[in-house]
């Protein structure tokens, strides 16, 4: 667990966020804050509105109601904040070379071509993919592609790092590598939003968490506070307690 920030400046603020898709309300009335320099766990069962909230936060969705701010203002690509975003929907330009794709995204994030190439090479060396730099993306395994996408996410040394289920599809070795990388960025002062279903990752990385159910918050606070609220149960037990009935009803439906 990392050290809690002493000065609690707000990095992300979400207030009365509501999101409708047609007649369906995905997020009802969601409000929370994320402090600068903390790792914030964004938890909930599938379809509870986590990804929708992140997409709305990043301006990819226009919210039906409420306010979503990063650094005190709505996010746009012209915002000065250095963002690293690893979306849940993974993908890269499959027919291009790994190094070309990484350099392209680095340039889009405001890096010079030279810097982007240098950072890409450093990352590829770290994750043992140096020999794949000039390989087409679609020739890589799924795990290797995920590593490349992670490299793109962090190559600009982001102030705000949003990782939507980053360990999905990773083997234990790569999962550990990813968590090491997250910790490194937190030590550098980055604010990290971490979406996951893996409670051991939450235990290891997160300062504070929020649990969403049916588009509303049902638990919010530090990991210790949330545990205390549920009688010091483990996060796994809390998760099962909150979402167990949902899964049962889903099973009944199926």
């Amino acid at each position, binding site marked *: 667990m990392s050290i809690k920030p002493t000065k609690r400046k707000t990095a992300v603020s979400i207030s009365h966020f509501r999101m409708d*898709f*047609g007649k369906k309300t995905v997020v009802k009335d969601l409000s929370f804050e994320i402090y600068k320099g903390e790792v914030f766990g964004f938890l909930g069962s599938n379809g509870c509105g986590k990804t929708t909230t992140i*997409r709305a936060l990043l301006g990819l969705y226009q919210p039906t109601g409420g306010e979503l701010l990063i650094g005190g203002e709505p996010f746009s690509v012209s915002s000065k904040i250095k963002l690293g975003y690893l979306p849940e*929907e993974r993908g890269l*330009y499959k*027919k*291009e070379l790994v190094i070309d794709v990484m350099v392209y995204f680095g340039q889009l994030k405001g890096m010079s071509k030279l810097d982007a190439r240098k950072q890409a090479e450093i990352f590829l060396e770290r994750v043992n993919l140096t020999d794949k730099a000039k390989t087409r993306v679609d020739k890589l395994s799924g795990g290797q592609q995920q590593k490349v996408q992670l490299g793109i996410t962090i190559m600009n040394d982001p102030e705000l790092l949003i990782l939507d289920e980053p360990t999905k599809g990773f083997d234990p070795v790569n999962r550990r590598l990813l968590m090491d990388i997250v910790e490194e960025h937190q030590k550098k002062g980055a604010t990290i939003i971490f979406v996951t279903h893996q409670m051991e990752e939450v235990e290891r990385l997160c300062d504070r968490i929020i649990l969403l159910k049916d588009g509303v918050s049902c638990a919010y606070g530090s990991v210790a506070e949330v545990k205390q609220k549920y009688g010091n149960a483990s996060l796994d037990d809390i998760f099962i307690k909150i979402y167990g009935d949902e899964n049962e009803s889903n099973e009944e439906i199926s």
Partner: protein
Amino acid sequence: MYNLGTVFNFEFMRTIKKKSFWIMTLAFPIIIGLVFAIIFFSNQTTSNAAENTKNQKFSIEVTDESGLINKELLKQFDAQESVNKQASIDKVKNGKLDAYFYYSKGLDKKGVEIYAKDVGLFDNSRYQGVADALIQTSVIPTVNGETGAILRNTVKFNSTTYRDGKKFDGIKELIAPGIFLVLFYILIAMFGNQMLTSTTEEKENRVTEMLLTTIEARTLIVGKILSLIALAFVQITSIIVPVVIAYVFFRTQLALPNLDLSNIPINPLRIGIGASIFTFSFLLFTGLLVAIGAVAPTAKEAGGFFGVIMIFIFGPLYAASLFISAPNSPLVGFLSFFPLTAPIPLMLRNAVGNLGVADSLVGILILAISSVIALTIAVRLFRYGVLEYSNRLSLGVLFKKQLKK
């Protein structure tokens, strides 16, 4: 438009480095080159064969009942006069004589009878050539020069046509403004599909979210469009260069006409109108393709919509003669001013010179407004549609909720 250059470079370089791009680019001039080569060698072979045939000596007997054949000429051809038609035919049948020509009395009705030894489908024509040469060379010099020229089909025709009191050469006038029509056709035919694939690619590759958090959708699309235009320039250059080389160095061998480009009329107004129609037509078409790419979940599904757009755009070509012959008909008016069908009729009518200034302005205005609307909607659709990875975008939801922004 921050990062426009980055998008342009990436899109341009990744396409130009692909083998498939060069295969497509070079296939067209190579095929054209091959066709010309075949024509050239075919002409050469035919010419050589004709020369060989002409030089071949073969035995001929001639009966001239028409009285038109020059006797001296018969000697030059080593032809013998025959007075017994049947005997000469028998000689041919028995292989003792190669050919026998019978010029009957009243040639205009009865014609010339040729009896000859078979020497193959193509070489058999030599007999008719000689029979024809005998009579032409005998008769034409006996008529005076002008009639002879008419008989030889060598009379020249010099036409001067006028419009509004000024010289007007319809064909030459068509060339400069017509270039825009040709360019539009080439661009759409060669790049329509690439444009569609380009806009669906991010969606199919699930790369959109990362992109749209680093770059404006509008910048991405403009960068793609500019790169496609640059690629089109590369392709067109690749096509034109061999054609120019062929024209400059092999014009005679390929029997190409001698084009005098120095006196092509340049009408700035019509060229300006053509350029405006071309530009807005291209933007309209681009907007439509981007919109289709954003709405459809895959390039394959987008192809269906693309077909419909192509029918609208190029369908009017089937009524091309109508645009030239009846420019004031209601159908031509409708096709000229309905945004989806307008590009071809407007460009064609401008090229042939029957598009008035008022009609031009109305047409350009319609295309300009349509292209701005199409591109604006396309960017919005791309912005929101690309997150509907495997679903077709619900336009109802989009217009009700998202476009309110």
